């Protein structure tokens, strides 16, 4: 499961995507995900949103 390590807004190839910190991230183009993962904006997470927030 992918979650936003920090809130982001992205305009990518004409479409705009947003996520708040800790939100599950899905439906993003693979190439955008590659960039977001590379820059540490989106990370793999095995915990639920509540657990992530509690951490």
């Amino acid at each position, binding site marked *: 499961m992918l979650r936003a390590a920090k809130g*982001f*807004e*992205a*305009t*990518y*190839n*004409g479409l*705009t995507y947003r996520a708040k910190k800790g939100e599950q991230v899905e439906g993003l183009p693979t*190439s955008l995900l590659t960039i977001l993962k590379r820059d540490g904006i989106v990370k793999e997470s095995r915990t639920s949103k509540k657990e992530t927030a509690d951490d």
Partner: protein
Amino acid sequence: MINTSIGLLGVARQESKTKAAPTPTFRHGLTGGGLIKPERTVEQKNVACGLRANTTNGAYVSEVNMAVDFETLAYADSLVLYILAAMGNIVTTSAEKPGYYKHVITLGSEIPFLTFWGQVGNTSAATVHKATGCKIDTLLLSFEGNAPLDIGITAAGIDAALFGGWSGETEPSCFDGYFIPTNGVFKFSPNDQTPIEVLVTKGEFELSNSLTSYRGAGRVIASEVAESKLKTTVKQTIIPEDYTEIRKVLTGSENGTTVTNKVVYGSAAWEFTHSQDPNCTMSVVFSNVPWNCETPEIDPEGSAAEVEFSADDIGVAAKDGSPVTITIVNKVQTYAAA
């Protein structure tokens, strides 16, 4: 008279091609340019009618181009929108300092539409023109010494409303400072992707979308403004310590002795500071640059050689690559359409 020292430009991102922005998101000062210029092309249909001159009714307007051109400073807020509109993609996150945002702009498949407002002369004379459905044609950034960065922009639109006034009360950016080379960091590598600091005296890059206007029969204003491939050109002049950089470009290695028949790909990275806000920063990173260079010329008066390294069209080396990556930190939270 029309006082040309009174000028202001407004800009906002449009939701779609036909939906103009209602008010400017940014307004800023200018250092030159004609702002919004309806360019009418008048042609003459030759008619022989008993006299040795054409008839007056042979003249017709063949096309009207809604051109936008201006020169300005690198204002931290509006510059992001211009670069986004030239390149296409942006990722915005919070910066380390609260209240600041980091915008990373890269090559995208589509570029957004902008609405421009341009004023030349006193507004009491209804001097504000508005151009809509605009795309950025070229964006030029240049610097030399410690002078403020110069930004030159050309754009083209599909409609305009002339001789109006401003809508909204957006505060102009003119008073908030701009990006400058002072205390910046300038790196360069002629043949690898890890640039190192060098003595750069001046530099520039241009993003060009090579716009083409299309108009249907019966319509003088363009119905469609289409972009082509993004062409990124870059130039920078350095004072080299020795022949190492020139040798790497010419021969492909630091100890080569024959001119290489292969392209040597290097890189460059420029970091600029802000004239008023130390938390605002700008970096420009070029990768896979097919550098070419001059060689030093004799000067009997004597001086250190300045050598220009340039590349005409930087490509991408991966499917998610970008010829240039521009990162700006400023106080603007979003560049989505208003």
